[in-house]
């Protein structure tokens, strides 16, 4: 406990340097992603890209074995899904090979928007609860929302130009009485799900996110220069305002960006579910960022006690995600209403079963492994275990978002191919580049934060 008491707020200021070598490495990763993406797109244009066909073939073999025993059951399942997805048969006819590219752009934009905005949410939450321990590391999540400047425009552009690829409710004529595509259920939802209102929500709430982040960031940097507790009081107010707005907008965006892809289906838990997924991913990214900086010899004042708290957050929110995901599943499973079970049938039995492996893998990666890896106190205080758990969580929640978005957009044309790997590499390297750039703009520790001395003596 006495080990780090020689740090005083005056001598902790330090800066992360985004070296040209580091920049080069990230740019190489970006280029590698682009190359993979281009090859993937080329393969897609030549017909189906590899990847899922192998998986599907494997499933077919397994399925053949099961079929004799489960013939009756399979037929019943096919019947249910066949009845309820009749609207998708229409969509299949319009399927174009480029759809999978747009689905991937949308998936990654939503995923990384989440990581960016939850960085802001985390900092706001620390101000709202007046937490002391986090003041040593809050500059790391504070830099994340910078990526909103890239991801929100991507969301707006993709929605504006390619929205009909992603959203069933944007298909031509679905709300037009008399049109062959007319869909009564979607027409009933058109008061909320229409192009203009969607864009208004996206621009207004996205704009508020960016605005509040800029206010918070500005005050936080001024505090570094001038000190004084009045900055803290102002930051608490900004953080509180953000939490109120985020509380509404995170749910609204979960319905808009993801749930409305499966337009007929709905779940009242979906806002929580997507927020939980974003939230735990962001903790994993924060942990990786801090451990990277520590490996560089920076942030020496962030000791195993702070890492322990972050580890607890990762552990707790992995369980929270599981709770929300499973509750959503259990209620639907129990009630057994065809219009609700279709969502899980599609991911379990539908589309030649290409999504079944991911669905199982996701629960292992997002619940079972983090639960076991991070269970003990020692694991939460040991860097290597934190790193393993963080990577598992990030991969698991990418798959989680994949499972939310892909079946509804590309259906049986989905899979894990070069397009997916290329696109996620492109987005991840862009994210790291932007965040690293933002991190250099301020001292890594908020040196005039009134709770900094408390955080430096944090001991659990």
């Amino acid at each position, binding site marked *: *406990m006495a080990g780090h008491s020689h740090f005083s707020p005056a001598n902790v200021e330090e800066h992360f340097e985004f070296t040209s070598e580091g920049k080069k490495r990230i740019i190489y990763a970006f280029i590698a992603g682009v190359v993979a993406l281009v090859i993937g797109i080329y393969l897609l244009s030549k017909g189906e890209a590899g990847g899922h066909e192998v998986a599907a073939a494997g499933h077919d073999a397994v399925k053949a074995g099961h079929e004799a025993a489960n013939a009756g059951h399979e037929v019943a399942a096919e019947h249910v899904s066949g009845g309820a997805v009749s609207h998708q048969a229409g969509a299949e006819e319009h399927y174009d090979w480029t759809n999978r590219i747009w689905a991937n752009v949308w998936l990654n934009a939503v995923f990384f928007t989440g990581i960016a905005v939850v960085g802001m949410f985390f900092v706001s939450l620390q101000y709202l609860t007046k937490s002391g321990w986090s003041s040593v590391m809050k500059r790391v999540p504070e830099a994340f929302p910078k990526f909103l400047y890239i991801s929100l425009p991507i969301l707006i552009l993709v929605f504006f130009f390619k929205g009909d690829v992603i959203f069933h409710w944007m298909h031509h004529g679905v709300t037009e009485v008399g049109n062959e595509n007319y869909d009564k259920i979607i027409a009933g939802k058109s008061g909320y799900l229409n192009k203009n209102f969607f864009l208004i929500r996206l621009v207004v709430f996205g704009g508020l996110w960016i605005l509040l982040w800029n206010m918070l960031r500005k005050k936080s940097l001024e505090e570094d220069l001038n000190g004084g507790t009045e900055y803290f009081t102002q930051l608490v107010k900004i953080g509180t305002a953000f939490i109120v707005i985020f509380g509404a907008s995170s749910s609204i965006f979960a319905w808009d960006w993801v749930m409305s892809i499966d337009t007929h289906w709905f779940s009242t838990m979906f806002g929580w579910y997507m927020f939980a997924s974003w939230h735990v991913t962001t903790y994993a990214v924060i942990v990786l960022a801090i451990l990277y900086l520590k490996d560089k010899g920076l942030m020496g004042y962030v000791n195993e006690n702070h890492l322990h708290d972050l580890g607890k957050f990762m552990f707790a929110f992995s369980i929270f995600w599981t709770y929300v995901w499973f509750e959503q599943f*259990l209620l639907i499973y*129990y009630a*057994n209403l065809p219009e609700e079970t279709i969502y899980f049938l599609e991911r379990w039995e539908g589309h030649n079963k290409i999504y079944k492996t991911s669905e199982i893998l996701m629960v292992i990666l997002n619940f079972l492994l983090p639960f076991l890896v991070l269970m003990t106190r020692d694991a939460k205080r040991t860097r290597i275990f934190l790193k393993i758990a963080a990577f598992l969580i990030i991969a698991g929640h990418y798959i989680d978002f994949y499972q939310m978005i892909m079946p509804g957009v590309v259906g049986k044309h989905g899979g894990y191919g070069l397009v997916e790997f290329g696109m996620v590499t492109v987005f991840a390297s862009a994210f790291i580049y932007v965040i690293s750039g933002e991190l250099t703009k301020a001292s890594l520790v908020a040196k005039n934060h009134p709770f900094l001395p408390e955080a430096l003596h944090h001991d659990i």
Partner: protein
Amino acid sequence: MSSTTNYILGVYDDEDEVLHAVGEVKAKGIKVEDVYSPFPIHGLDVAVGHERTRLPIAAFMFGTLGMICAFSLISYTMVFDWPMIIGGKDFFALPNWIPIAFEGTVLFTAFGLVSTFCISNDLWPGNKTLPLDIRTTDDKFVMAINVDKNKVSAADIKKALKESGAVEVNVK
């Protein structure tokens, strides 16, 4: 406390003093058995050198046991003893078992941990253990040293306690 044990007790007035005194006494090669305080003192367990509690391991075991028991109970009753069709599900409807397994896990862990804690701290019902010095329940802090477990002579221990700021040194 059995009558054959030979304790020397240093009585202190202040929690900061007792925290520093532990270090001073230990620096002289004296083994400190325990420190008694009316309230928890941050860092005291580390200063005395207590091992971390193994209660989390017990918690994991009780939890695992609870999960197994809950799974066994629900499977036995709903699958083997009296199979019932509920909501058209299989007799062995695993997702429905999970909330029950969760409750069983929590129940066993809670009761198991409270019992383990009480037993390992001599706190079972009807047991009357008197503190070494009754004033540790009020405003005094007592450092207890077991003479038999120390190679240092009793006189040196008393001297060390006095030097470290003890207001009283008693033998019990």
